[in-house]
């Protein structure tokens, strides 16, 4: 378990998105309650026109939490690369959460464009956090392209369905024991976040689950506690589960030969 991302240690395994809150003030309340290691912020749509999102970005900067800009809403390599450059300029960071969306309804990543954009940005000195699927081969390609972090989805963005493919996420963890892994997208309730940490993931990224809760600040606190619980459980080395449906050890006083 590592909270080191490109050599920087985060204070919490919780990454919090800043979109869709009822107001910047409530966003601020949620950030204070979640105490996240980073906040992510979208530049693509807000950028329409030169620096037109400056007022909102200033509010994000004032939160006092490290900023991980993202390329949400980008559908092509070119858009994503341009947006990353703008993010570097606006936020003074070379970190970028890279999203290249391949399908409009599910917002599933276009993994082919993702690898290409990751290579271009890594070569240009960016520290890329790619939003990907749990596909092992894609993961290999992203690492080869220069990524030192992987952010597989739990489920489609905004679906709240939790960890859809536990087997795939376990496999990814097992194949890349030393790569920081973050479950990004699909987390709906705090128990999903706990589960991701229990699986050995280094962090989780939440946005809609907090922003669209009836009380975002309370939900943010629930997530803070949930990632703590998951991280502690992982540290404590959980027991193995046993399948009682498979007969094995004879019970005392009752010989079993089955």
């Amino acid at each position, binding site marked *: 378990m590592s909270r080191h991302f490109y050599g920087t240690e985060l204070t919490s395994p919780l990454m919090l998105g800043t979109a869709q809150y009822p*107001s910047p003030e*409530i966003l601020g309340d949620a950030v204070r309650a979640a105490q996240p290691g980073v906040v992510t912020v979208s530049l693509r749509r807000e950028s*329409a026109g030169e620096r037109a999102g400056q*007022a*909102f970005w200033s509010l994000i900067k004032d939160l006092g939490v490290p900023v991980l800009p993202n390329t949400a809403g980008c559908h092509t390599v070119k858009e994503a690369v341009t947006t990353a450059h703008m993010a570097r300029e606006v936020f003074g960071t070379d970190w970028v959460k890279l999203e290249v969306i391949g399908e409009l309804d599910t917002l599933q990543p276009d993994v082919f464009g993702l690898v290409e954009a990751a290579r271009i940005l890594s070569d240009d000195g960016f520290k890329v956090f790619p939003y990907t699927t749990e596909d092992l081969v894609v993961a290999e390609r992203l690492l080869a392209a220069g990524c030192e972090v992987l952010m597989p989805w739990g489920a489609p963005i905004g679906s709240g369905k939790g960890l859809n493919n536990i087997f795939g996420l376990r496999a990814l963890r097992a194949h890349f024991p030393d790569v920081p892994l973050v479950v990004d997208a699909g987390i709906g309730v705090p128990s999903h976040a706990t589960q991701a940490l229990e699986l050995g993931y280094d962090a989780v990224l939440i946005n809609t689950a907090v922003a669209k809760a009836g009380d975002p600040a309370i939900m943010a606190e629930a997530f803070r506690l949930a990632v703590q619980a998951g991280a502690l459980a992982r540290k404590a080395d959980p027991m193995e589960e046993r399948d009682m449906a498979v007969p094995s050890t004879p019970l005392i006083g009752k010989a079993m030969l089955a």
Partner: protein
Amino acid sequence: MQGTPRILVKGAGVAGMTAAVTLAKRGGRVTLYDPGGRVGAGASWMAGGMLAPWCEAESAPEDVTAQSVASVDWWAAHVPDVVRAGSLVLAPPRDVGEVARFGRRTSHFQTVDGEQIADLEPDLAGRFHKGLFFAEEGHVDPRKALVALLESLKTMGGQAIFNEADEPDAAGFDWVVDCTGLNVRKALPALRGVRGEMLLLRCPDVALHRPVRMLHPRIPIYIVPRADHVFMVGATMIESENAGGMTVRSITELLNAAWVLHPAFAEAEILEMGTGVRPSFPDNMPRVIQDGRTVYVNGMYRHGFLLSPTRAQEAADIVFGTAG
């Protein structure tokens, strides 16, 4: 204060017009000034005009509802053509879960099934099977309402100046009520702009009697009927101060929502594409702020028609020395 206070109201958007009329009604000698050439030269012209205290409660602080319940009455008392037919909240089949979530966050509605929806809006018969009906809400055509407030101001003896060349000197007034939105950022640095985009469509094949909100997890949109089969479709909420033309994406999202509501919108005529930038404070709540003899009414966000009557009263209470 002695005698009749002379008041300069700056800004002829919804905040300025409600303030001007309220102040004049309470006995002030009001001069209205807006260099924009007419009433509603800013974001107010693009407003939906929904008077929906309970629908707004879904995502706004409770204060919004508490402070706006009387708003429908205020508008009905001050401008013609306020429609009090309630509002309807619907979702396409896949997102029908959003209806229950919306309901949990608010009150003063009744859950309606397909038959009841068809009774309320015959043109939507068979298209939706679950929704919420907020019977006590209303709506108004913002443009007609602003023009009506200007007439009312003039009737009460108020003066309106729309030329920059004729800008009145503030020194000649006892009070300045400043409702100029983002123009006063220097005085109110917490202000930011939130971009909104809207469409006006004419669709003779569809008749609606009340605003319909279409729920979607990412793209919630509303459609407000105006007179003569004109519909306002809005509105995006983007953290940007760009007042430039509408984007293809926003147009597509708004038109898709209209189409989902009723396929006849496919043949609708696009009358207008509008963009406005809403002045907003960090809590997205409008404020009345006194600084000496200046009273700022600002930060209407998306609540201009809903909350400006209350804010106008607060401003008037300061001017007339009756603030609590």
